[in-house]
């Protein structure tokens, strides 16, 4: 695998993300949503920003997921639909490089879009009279970026064998379950019967744990930064997860027959 080729493929994804306007639309939506929330009169009290941070970060997570899935799941199906996959693979680009480049491009695009969201939120919170704690803000963004990497890898994996819409739907279901349902398993498993329990345990251990990348509680409720060692563990876990998902994507894509005839 050559890094230069991967970067070249990633660059095309960035350019495409810039050309399409969906990121700007989401950013505007986020801004409108936060400003609407900020306009709430809280019994005339000033300097209350926790709820703005809370709603803003929740929206940033939601929009981050939407951007990551939208960008990552359309890469391969769009290339195949437009027949541009053939000249791309005719060049000395391996399928592994193509997948990695697409993943890198999607991740970086979504991460930069999220940076814009975080900066917008920080500015609005500042305008409301509050502030984010620097280190916690940095850690929160860093782990969010890692989560976006995992979501993009999920999107790429599904798009290797499915069309754009199906891949996006499955990615939403998987990411949503990983974020909302999987963390609830320890609570559900207490009352589960034998077979159910085993099934839940399997899900708990094989599904990605996106809640590990979510530091909103620390940010909103001023718990201060997490220890760098635990942050490092989570990042290593994220890297392993991304690696596994990309390997699975490669296994699914390496022998995929791409035929023009299939397209008509």
């Amino acid at each position, binding site marked *: 695998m050559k890094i230069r080729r991967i970067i070249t493929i990633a660059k095309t994804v960035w350019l495409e993300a810039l050309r399409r306007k969906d990121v700007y639309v989401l950013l505007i939506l986020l801004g409108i949503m936060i400003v609407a929330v900020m306009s709430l009169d809280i*019994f005339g009290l000033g300097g209350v920003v926790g709820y703005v941070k809370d709603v803003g970060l929740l929206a940033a997570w939601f929009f981050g997921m939407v951007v990551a899935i939208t960008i990552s799941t359309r890469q391969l199906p769009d290339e195949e639909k437009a027949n541009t996959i053939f000249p791309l693979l005719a060049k000395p680009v391996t399928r592994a490089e193509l997948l990695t480049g697409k993943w890198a491009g999607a991740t970086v695009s979504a991460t930069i879009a999220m940076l814009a969201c975080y900066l917008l939120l920080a500015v609005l919170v500042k305008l409301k009279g509050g502030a984010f704690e620097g280190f916690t803000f940095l850690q929160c963004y860093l*782990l969010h970026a890692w989560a976006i990497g995992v979501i993009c890898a999920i999107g790429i994996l599904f798009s290797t064998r499915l069309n754009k819409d199906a891949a996006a739907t499955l990615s939403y279901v998987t990411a949503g379950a990983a974020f909302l349902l999987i963390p609830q398993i320890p609570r559900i498993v207490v009352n589960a019967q034998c077979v159910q329990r085993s099934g839940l345990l399997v899900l708990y251990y094989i599904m990605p744990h996106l809640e590990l990348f979510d530091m909103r509680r620390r940010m909103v409720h001023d718990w201060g930064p997490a220890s760098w060692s*635990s942050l490092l563990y989570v990042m290593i876990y994220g890297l392993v997860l991304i690696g596994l998902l990309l390997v699975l994507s490669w296994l699914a894509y390496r022998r995929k027959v791409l035929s023009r005839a299939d397209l008509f």
Partner: protein
Amino acid sequence: METITNSTVNGRRRERFYGWAAVIILWTTAFSMACYSDIAKHSEHNAAGSTIGRLLSKASIGLSQACYERADLYFHKGVPHSSKKALADSFYHILNEEINPSSHAHRHGRSLAEIMPWLKLVTSLDPGNIEARLNAVFLLMKMKEFDVAEKVLMDARRTNPKDHRVLLYLGRIYVKREKISEAGQILETALRFCHDEACAGCDHCKDTLIDKRAILLYLAAIDEAEGNLSQAVERLEAIIEIFPGSHEIETTIKALKKRPDGESSGILLEALKSHEEAESQTFSSCTVPDCEH
């Protein structure tokens, strides 16, 4: 050069027509919706009668409940109530505990204001939820925001004019702000609306009795401060009727009876104020067994 034909002109006219039509339709829709929401707001009958009204009202109550739970979550600094969990020794659980703190904690001082937006949302979505308003008032009083607390209570009084709890809190605020005569009037009204006849030992009735005791205690203290000692004794004796065997009250009655009528000291009122201060301090301490505070 572009040749302007009849069809081009007609096309442009059509576009202009559609543009204006869209603007008029949108404006009419917006105006109708504004009128509808205004009417719906002022007509409880409509909301209670129509299916959509009932659905919307149920949805808003459900949403307000969610906001109320959110307020509780904010009081506990984002940590949800602990429940029985398995897999406590799993890698994911341990790492999650490191990233997301889960120890039992409470907000204190000015940071209590962070709870307010959610209570505000509860009161907006469900104006009949007096409990949320009283919680907001309690927190505002803890933050010494008496003006704001009074405003909230005035709003609550508009929607629930006969709720003795609202009047009791209003009376307490007036006492705090040294508006003794207003406090006396409002607490008299609270006493009139504090019905305890149907009491059968349920929690609600017990709370009503406790509220009645508080109202009588405040009224007795105000009477004592104004030199109306015989009236104060009557109030305290009424408390003994509700809660017999209260040693402190009996002692106070004896002390008041010894004093000549018309003599005022304000000791009772001061004692009540300091008691309330202490009560507000104990609110911060936790009742959960595994609490670290």
